[in-house]
């Protein structure tokens, strides 16, 4: 039953993906820019631009361009970047893991903090702990992440000198042998501890800046839902049959509160994969957000399209995963 559901969701995702490619394709072609001109460079002659336009296939009808684009995509050929003249997948290979690593670590810290603080606030409603947690998490949302990032850099890099200000790894540390592209994972797998240590240090500030700017949402959501759940009859029953407070809150309360929390967090994770451009710029993180912005500025169509498609896939996969998690969390849920 549930497998059939997942397959149906998968098929639906493919249709959505097709729609997204069609839309981005049309949009990028509608922008009043000339990618051949942009690619040839400001100094190129009109003939050079024309030659380039032909070689890029930009003189062919739009429909024909779209069909050949889809054909290439099906064989994982993302095309050649106008800017770098290199296959786009070579760029994605570098930038996507960097963003994924940041997003995964952010999500782990974010989920843990949201749930922990949310529960503490919910079991002590109206007490000082509740107020402090709520005030701090709202303050985090109110602080723009670039400003917080600069403050963190000033404190932990400039004044204290504990953490690096920028980059993903100390250039003087040899990067781990590439397996997943995630430095932390590759470093642990190859026992390259200097790289793991350096990667963790470089992650610290961007992770804190990103988490702090989102924590308010997670904490308030968890707190509200937990308060609601803790008021239910079955919680009173659990208390009355003599279970400890810890067991009541975690086994009976949290598990029932998780569904809406996971939906929200899942979608936030997809958004994070889109790259947090501001944090990437402030902390010099070589991620996909900076790559996307750079590509848009230079009208690097193949790169723009590829980033869009990759992110769309990530978003769709996440939403299917979230649905699958529901099934696991609450066996009563049945999909028609």
């Amino acid at each position: 039953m549930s497998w059939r559901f997942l397959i149906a969701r998968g098929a639906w995702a493919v249709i959505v993906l097709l729609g997204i490619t069609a839309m981005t394709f049309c949009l990028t072609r509608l922008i009043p820019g000339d990618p051949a001109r942009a690619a040839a460079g400001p100094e190129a002659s009109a003939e050079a631009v024309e030659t380039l336009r032909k070689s890029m296939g930009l003189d062919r009808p739009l429909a024909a361009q779209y069909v050949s684009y889809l054909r290439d995509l099906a064989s994982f050929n993302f095309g050649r970047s106008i800017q770098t003249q290199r296959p786009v997948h070579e760029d994605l290979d570098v930038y996507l893991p960097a963003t994924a690593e940041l997003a995964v670590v952010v999500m782990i810290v974010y989920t843990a903090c949201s749930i922990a603080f949310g529960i503490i606030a919910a079991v002590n409603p109206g007490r000082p702990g509740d107020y402090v947690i709520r005030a701090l998490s709202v303050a985090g949302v109110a602080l723009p992440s670039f400003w917080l990032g600069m403050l963190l850099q000033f404190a932990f890099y400039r004044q204290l000198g504990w953490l690096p200000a920028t980059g993903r790894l100390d250039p003087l540390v040899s990067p781990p042998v590439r397996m997943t592209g995630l430095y932390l994972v590759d470093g642990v797998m190859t026992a390259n501890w200097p790289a793991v240590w350096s990667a963790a240090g470089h992650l610290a500030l961007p992770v804190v800046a990103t988490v702090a700017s989102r924590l308010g949402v997670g904490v308030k959501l968890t707190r509200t839902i937990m308060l609601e759940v803790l008021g239910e009859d079955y919680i009173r029953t659990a208390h009355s049959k003599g279970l400890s407070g810890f067991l009541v809150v975690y086994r009976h309360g949290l598990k029932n509160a998780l569904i809406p929390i996971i939906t929200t967090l899942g979608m936030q994770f997809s958004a994070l994969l889109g790259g947090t451009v501001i944090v990437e710029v402030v902390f010099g993180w070589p991620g996909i957000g900076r790559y996307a912005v750079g590509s848009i500025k230079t009208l690097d169509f193949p790169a723009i399209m590829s980033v869009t498609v990759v992110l769309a896939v990530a978003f769709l996969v996440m939403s299917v995963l979230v649905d699958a998690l529901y099934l696991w969390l609450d066996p009563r849920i049945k999909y028609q």
Partner: protein
Amino acid sequence: MLHVARTTDGGTAVSVEVNGRGGARHDNGCRKSAVRKSESLPHKSRLTRRTLLKSGAAAAAVGIATAAVPTRPTSAQGRGNILNVALQFYAETFDPAIGVAGPHYRIFVNTYEGLVEYQRGTANLMPALATSWTISPDLTVYTFKLRSNVKFHDGSTLDAEAVKRSFDRVKKIAQGPAIFLRQMKEIDIVDPMTVRVTLLQPSATFIYGLSKIFVHGKAHAADADDGRAWFAANINGTGPFAVSQAEKNQFIALRRHSPYWKGWPAQHVDGVLIRIVPDAGTQKLMLARGEVDMMNLYSIGPDEPPENLAKLPGVKLVKSPTYRTFFYPMNVQKPNSPLRDKRVRKAFALAFNYDALRDVYYGNEQVPNGFLAPGFVGYDRARPKVGRDVAAARKLLAEAGYARGLETALDVNQEEEQGRKMGLIFQQSLKEIGVNASLLYSPPPGVFYAQIAKLETAPLSGPHLTQSPLTADAGSYIRQIFGSDSAGKPYNFAWYQNPEVDRRLDAAERERDPNKRIALWRQAESLVIDDQPVVFLAFATPIVEPVRERVMNYLYHPFDYSGVFQFYPVWLS
């Protein structure tokens, strides 16, 4: 104090003196902080955390034998003989037949060389990979003798075939750098150390652009894709530094090219570690902490007075002369625009509050007297400076039929600090002559170049430009901004077309006598000034750049883009 003597190619010597704190500190900036104990050790025997890491674990291999030193980090806080630099962009391609923008040149000037080069800090043409050349009397054939025993980074030797392949590749790929070879018909090998370039038409100035045609090794140049894939990611030049390691958007490590033909006296650096740091604030923090010795975002767009940075312990300012001109184009052909009328354009120029530009360049600017900047070929010191005259501006506007003012729009590039501030100053200045200007922000370059190419979509005016010549050929420089063929293309944003200007520039190109050439360029410049297609805002010189005090002998080259550093002359105290 820093004395820079330059000669134009006509031989007239101009001496420019740059006074001030930066120059003075440049010479004696040897104050050291206590942590740098290792610096008293002899040059080569310094074993510090960084050199150790560099030579061993990092595989950055900056010129020290890797086997000889242990690879475990030590706790010593020294920085070795490695120059640490923060740049805001990674060069998205390393191909010298494609790249013509700042991010490319930041790497090329340190790794590649042309047949000729310019003397440090000047417009004097010097031999580089060519030791001598002859020009045929009809100015159509250039013959170059090549320097012997010059090695590429891959160990191969410079010869005529390498030069021919490099030139042919630029011509065939026909992108950015091809502009410098547009007059070239063909290049032939005369003998293994001599090449002959034949031009399409006579040109006395062809040679000036050859400093920007970089010669690469023969390997991969004849690949099926013309070597595009290989050259995009690899560098094989004759320049002082070779790339030892590069991680996209993270860092580029350069090591000494030990057989470099200019040699390696003791004082040069062993290597350069370029970190990609896109944020100006982060670059400044790294400079303040001494993690980097030089940062380029301040050079590109200073966002606070340089004195603020000089207050940071261990940081000094370096002032270098430039040939930069800061100006604001006004579209002279846009249908139904008041700016088609020369009197309106002149009124705008007279209304501009030139004194307020102090907030843009913090006093490191000069009131201009035209287009060609002081020190550059053709600069005419006798030409009167521009100035503000609100009454005259009002009068001109009235004559043009706008006694009650007019509405217009100023396009500015919001990503450039100078442009944003200049826009506000311009808007305020125009208000005083009854002109109501709204500020519009230019779209990103890809979109903008398409807009400006058509008169219907081109903006009424703007955005601002800070232009600087790339070679000593003042004719090409004027032509790119005021030549009829460049209208609507970078950087003739004013759509200015005047056959008289073109005629002077054509005549200058065929003129053998350098002094007569300069006279023709000045005539062209006078015509432009009279037509006022742009407001000349400032000569943006000198450039002031913050560096760590240990950085010695750094000087910005006036033919480079802002934020391009040449590392070869630099040494660390």
